[in-house]
């Protein structure tokens, strides 16, 4: 038997009090450490002043979120903002959270490399975090008066505005001149006349991608009319080894939503997309119902679309000839073995194309607001030129970047859209956001499984649309 020596009455309370004293000492030390770190941050001198003035001419096609411009026009940009930003003389480390990993991270690091070359005193630590993860963790950190990063990049403009409404985001109106950007792109991060996010490069969802070699092999041509499109699908269906003419990508549902948006824009016009976002037109409106029932649902029922397949797996199957067409965003150009064998066509008659940008914002609680502003300004302007030169499948939102600076396969996409006078429209579900976005994705997965439930699905989307409530 082991005899346990038990503390006496006095030593028992001694232990308890000791634990508390140690706790207080540790707490005080931690507080002192944090406070001293803050003091160091505040005493960084900043005297160097950077001013920037840009005058450029470029050709772009524009679209607004409130109205749609149909013409290609030449825009002369004269930057009116001359932001006075101070570069730190001492070393500053910025933590940047963004959505890119893998190859995309490599392309973004090229932008960071050019920034740190320009501002050697600013060091960047890049952390990968998806928009969903950012949205669920950061509000709590902001509410506690803290931020895990000095600059955060996310494609969810609606979420940035939501955070701005709560006072968690720095106003960067003096850094961004909306006239220098593709119109409508800055509106998405504007609230009460103030700009809270800086647009970075953008992707497009231009249409159905195909392999040029596949089309050549089977004598297929891009369709010019809806009946030609159906004819093309029937021809593809008869090709041996083809499982379905169009492969349906499946993420958490979003590839289906892109297809649906393209049909809505094609047959309802670009303005329908905007009206659906604001609920000026409801999803169960006869016009919308007709587009679904006349064009999309028959294609699903006749198995012209495949079952939803995990979207990266779908790329491989499509590239290997199991499917002929794939509706996807421009980032696909950076995900295939030979982007020069790649081409696309929109649905015949489409006058709009969905595009969306990633946005950088500065949390109010950053300890390095000046350096963060420098980085955000860089991302929103010249940084875009470095990024779109990489095979990331993106185009610039800043008009200061020349077309010749864009990665070659994307120049083709850019030109094709411009030639067809297609306007760039905001992504429908990204614009509505919140829980409706996931509902939209999920209901469309249901549509693919049970196209006969189209009425029920459209009613659900109307009833739950935040802008439709009370209308």
């Amino acid at each position, binding site marked *: 038997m082991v005899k*346990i020596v*038990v*503390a006496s009455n006095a030593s*028992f309370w001694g*232990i*308890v009090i000791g*634990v508390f004293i140690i706790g207080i000492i540790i707490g005080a030390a931690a507080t002192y450490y944090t406070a001293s770190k803050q003091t160091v941050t505040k005493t960084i001198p900043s005297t160097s002043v950077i001013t920037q003035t840009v005058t450029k001419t470029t050709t772009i096609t524009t679209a607004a979120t409130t109205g749609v411009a149909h013409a290609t026009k030449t825009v002369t940009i004269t930057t009116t903002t001359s932001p006075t930003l101070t570069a730190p003389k001492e070393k500053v480390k910025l933590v940047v959270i963004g959505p890119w990993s893998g190859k995309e991270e490599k392309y973004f690091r090229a932008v960071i490399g050019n920034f740190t070359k320009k501002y050697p005193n600013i060091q960047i630590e890049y952390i990968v975090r998806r928009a*969903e993860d950012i*949205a*669920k963790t950061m*509000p709590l950190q902001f509410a506690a008066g803290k931020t895990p990063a000095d600059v955060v990049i996310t494609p969810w403009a609606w979420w940035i505005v*939501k955070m701005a409404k709560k006072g968690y985001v720095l106003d960067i109106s003096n850094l961004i001149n909306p006239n220098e950007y593709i119109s409508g792109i800055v509106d998405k991060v504007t609230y009460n006349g103030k700009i809270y996010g800086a647009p970075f490069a953008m992707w497009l969802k231009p249409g159905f991608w195909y392999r040029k070699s596949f089309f050549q092999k089977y004598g297929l041509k891009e369709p010019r009319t809806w009946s030609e499109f159906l004819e093309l699908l029937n021809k593809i269906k008869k090709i041996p080894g083809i499982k379905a003419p169009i492969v349906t990508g*499946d993420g*958490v*549902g979003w590839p289906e939503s892109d297809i649906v948006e393209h049909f809505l824009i094609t047959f309802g016009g670009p303005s329908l997309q905007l009206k659906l976002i604001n609920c000026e037109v409801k999803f169960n409106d006869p016009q919308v119902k007709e587009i679904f029932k006349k064009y999309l649902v028959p294609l699903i029922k006749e198995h012209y679309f495949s*079952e*939803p*397949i*995990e979207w990266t797996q779908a790329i491989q199957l499509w590239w290997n000839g199991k499917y002929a067409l794939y509706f996807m965003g421009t980032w696909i150009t950076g995900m295939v073995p030979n982007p020069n064998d790649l081409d696309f066509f929109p649905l015949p008659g489409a006058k709009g194309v969905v595009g969306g940008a990633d946005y950088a914002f500065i949390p109010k609680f950053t300890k390095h607001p000046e350096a963060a502003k420098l980085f955000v300004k860089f991302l929103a302007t010249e940084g875009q030129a470095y990024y779109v030169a990489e095979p990331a499948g993106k185009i610039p939102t800043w008009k200061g970047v020349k077309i010749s600076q864009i990665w070659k396969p994307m120049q083709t996409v850019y030109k094709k859209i411009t030639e067809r006078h297609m306007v760039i429209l905001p992504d429908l579900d990204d614009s509505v956001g*919140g*829980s409706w*976005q*996931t*509902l939209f*994705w*999920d*209901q469309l*997965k*249901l549509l*693919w*499984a*049970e196209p006969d*439930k189209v009425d*029920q*699905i459209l*009613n*659900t989307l109307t*009833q*739950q649309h935040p802008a439709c409530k009370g209308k």
Partner: protein
Amino acid sequence: MPRRRRTRLVLIFLLPELALILSFVLVPIIGTFIISFKTSHGYGVGNYYSVITERSPDRALVIPENIIKAQPPPWGALVHNIIWVAIHVPVVVFLGLTLAYLLRDVVGSSIVKSIMFLGMVIPMVVGGLLIRFMFDSDLGVIPVFLRELGIKSLAHTWTNYPQTALIALILGSVWLWTGFSLTVYAAALESLPKSYIEAARVDGASDFQIFFKVVFPLVKHATIIVVVMTMLWDLKIFDIVFVSTRGGPGGATNVMALVMYNYFARALDYGKSAATAVILALISLIPGIWFIRRVVRPSAEKR
């Protein structure tokens, strides 16, 4: 040892654990409880009312909208959890006990048991992905096998269709969880004297009678543990659903934990998320209390 000294010693040893439980369990529980009553108009039961009466397919607990006009699935998330329990628990109990009993005296059975236990060892996120691929029309074992059998109506991707998505996840969870049940029953059978079975055999009992009338009642405690742990696992199920279907298609695989997540991460509505968490916790208490009454308290009383 004097009683007072023993109490003090116990307190000293308990102090760190109590501090941790207080900081990381009790305080968050109380916080969640308070937040669940916080509404935009002050404090009240508004969040609970909204959560229970919600009809959107991605958040409905009981009855989603359109259920009357259209044939379910989906039902509400709570109903999906109950269906999960109703199928998963008996299957896991039956498979675990049967396998443990059959493998009892088989040479190399430990290898089989280890393989079965793999489902418990792998992260549930990976498990969710495996389920997704297991029921994929091109890559999945089950649709390919059914296609070979000529059952083409089920040779599709099960997780894409409301009629098969929930059952696919439940079957997948059987595969993931049977290892646990098998391990518990194997341990219980190890402690069972062989003479009981031999005596039953001498008395003329068939294998079937021995299994159901001798073995099954004698491993009652193990059954209670398996039933309660499986029920609790089913009620708080989240990861495999999130990874494989995200509650879809059309909300057909939505579960309570996912509803809580959707309120929290998508709608950024912390009050409703907390209210859902409290409802889930209260429902989980039912098997928990039953377990304490049937197993924990009698064992303590025996001592």
